[in-house]
């Protein structure tokens, strides 16, 4: 048994247990890892979404740090206001600000506010937990939903093969603001995630970190296999883990290319691509995205 004091030393439970996340939720694990890396001297601003709902039902709260939720799309602006207030009252040297939300609030409804916050140079770390659809409202397509994935608003049908567009590249949008640090991480690689969050918080100014977080409910995957799927996304090249610090790119290498079928075939959201001869084109297109990433980010040591 680890003593309470020992546990606290590592900040393991700043997002406390007892909340109502689904079994195998990648987002809750990632959020706990983020706070573990960030420590107690943070204020967290949370978008509306799964993470907010499962952690803050009045009169209970799973948050051991100052935490605020306002709305779906204004998290970055609320964080900017918090940062401004901390700055003018001389607290910014000891308090860090984290704004966080899902991919819907990041890639879609909150993108304008994120852009404003990044452009104005606020000292805020923005974290996107990317589970690739609006899971809290029942698995609807977001701008971050991957190519050909089934969601409740991008269903496959007689004339549809699922989501008709590749996912929006928000890390590159963040980079275009010329901010000092952008990173892509995965809940399947917790040590890499931990290092990136610590790195981001050591830098003053706006930072963007996007974390891939499988959602058993939305993806149709077994709860105990969340980490497997997170890793397969990286090992196929579909979710390249990289960071750009002051313009310099570093990517996490993968040992050898795993075919995308290994990642896709056991997820219900891609099931419609399998078992039918004429769907090979779609799988080849997804493989093309992975191959492009491997090339672009130099994921395999030649």
């Amino acid at each position, binding site marked *: 048994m680890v003593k309470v004091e020992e546990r606290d030393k590592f900040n393991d439970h700043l997002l406390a247990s007892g909340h109502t996340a689904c079994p195998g939720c990648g987002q809750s694990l990632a959020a706990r890892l983020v706070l573990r890396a960030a420590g107690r001297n943070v204020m967290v601003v949370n978008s509306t979404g799964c993470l907010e709902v499962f952690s803050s039902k009045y009169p209970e709260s799973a948050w051991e740090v100052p935490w605020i*939720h306002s709305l779906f799309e204004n998290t970055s*602006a609320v964080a900017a*206001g918090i940062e401004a207030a901390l700055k003018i009252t001389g607290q910014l040297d000891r308090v860090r600000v984290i704004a966080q939300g899902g991919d819907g609030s990041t890639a879609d409804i909150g993108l304008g506010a994120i852009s404003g916050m990044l452009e104005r140079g606020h000292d805020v770390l923005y974290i996107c937990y990317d589970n690739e659809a609006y899971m809290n409202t029942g698995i609807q397509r977001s701008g971050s939903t991957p190519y050909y994935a089934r969601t409740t608003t991008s269903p496959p049908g007689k004339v549809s093969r699922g989501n008709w567009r590749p996912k929006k590249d928000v890390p590159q949008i963040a980079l275009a603001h010329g901010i000092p640090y952008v990173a892509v991480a995965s809940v399947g690689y917790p040590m890499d995630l931990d290092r990136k969050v610590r790195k981001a918080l050591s830098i003053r100014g706006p930072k963007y970190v996007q974390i891939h977080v499988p959602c058993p409910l939305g993806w149709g995957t077994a709860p105990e296999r969340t980490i497997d799927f997170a890793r397969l996304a990286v090992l196929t090249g579909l979710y390249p883990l990289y960071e750009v610090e002051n313009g310099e790119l570093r990517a996490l290498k993968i040992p050898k290319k795993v075919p995308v079928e290994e990642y896709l075939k056991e997820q219900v959201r891609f099931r419609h691509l399998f078992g039918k001869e004429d769907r090979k084109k779609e799988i080849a297109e997804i493989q093309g995205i992975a191959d492009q990433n491997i090339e672009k980010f130099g994921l395999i040591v030649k």
Partner: protein
Amino acid sequence: MVKGRMLQGARAMAEMCALCRPKVISAYPITPQTLIVEELSQIVADGDLEAEFINVEGEHSAASVVLGAAAVGVRVFTCSSSQGLLLMSEVIFNIAGMRLPVVMICVNRSVSAPLNIWNDQQDSIIMRDSGWIQLYAENNQETCDLLLQAHKIAEDHRVMLPAMVCCDGYVLPHAYEIVDLPSQAEVDAFLPSYDPIYKLDIDNPTTMGAFADPEKYMETRYMIQETMKKSLSVIEEVARDFGSSFGRSSYGLFEKYRVDDASTVVVALGSMAGTIKDVVDELRDQGEKVGILRLICYRPFPKEALYEALSAAENIVIMEKDISLGGSGAVATDMRAVFYGREACPRISGFILGLGGRDITVDDIKTTISKAQHQVADADFVGLKEDLELEGING
């Protein structure tokens, strides 16, 4: 000798805002509010106010920035108008629900379409259900006076609700008037620094903005409703304090002008009361018992005080610059509710004037008063032009 300086309204409001020492200001330009934002940014740029001035990418974010800053426990300010206020509206409701004492100026302007940048009060009237205290000013002096009082009311621990000071676009912020602004020492003595009940603090972590299921939500609305009712006396108390501190009367919930023996009383909000007072004087000279009750505090709606003030009147004539399309004017609807089922039962008529900057003339007001003395009107439009387009409607 008249005390004060000849100032453009926007400049006076910006200086009054700075005297209240907000720590974080965030706003987005929208005509006719823009002048206030420009003046404020200059005051901050000159180092005359130690504050963070955040230029945002839209009004939704302007309101969100001040929400976040208020949650840290500092005094904040924003201002907007029309489309900007409507874009903010989601955050406007959120700020009230979170019980953050944000103060803003709404420079009243019509709502599109058609695009029209001129004055009416539709924008802030739409926000009447949001949980914000709403105070309407007649002139620039009162806008400044109410801004100072709004901070004190909102931050009062018996209240802890946001407050919106409304002033008529162009008519006030663009006009030059003599305004008597208090000194910094006088303001500091009247308005102590903000003392939040709850705030974000790493030494005392709290969760703000938790979600409430059906077992909890309704009580939050009840608490705001009850607080709204109780804040009526705080508004009056602050107005009295203001009067004794600055030697200038502040009317509290409403101003009565020649009302006490009047058989016909006009009820109006904002700058049009100036013209109506002139008409009242003229009609009084002709022996007509007419007065005007200028409503300052529209939310909370001072039901009992209005009943007391108006129960002796035979005719109540509401003139308002807003319309709940398909229904009636908002103020007229509220006013009728004050008297329904009560002993006093005056004839209550509602008129819609001055939408989209249409001039409200002395003749308009006289005609309206005369009409209301003979029949009950509901949402009667006053001052319509005989446009070709109307032929089909009236045909």
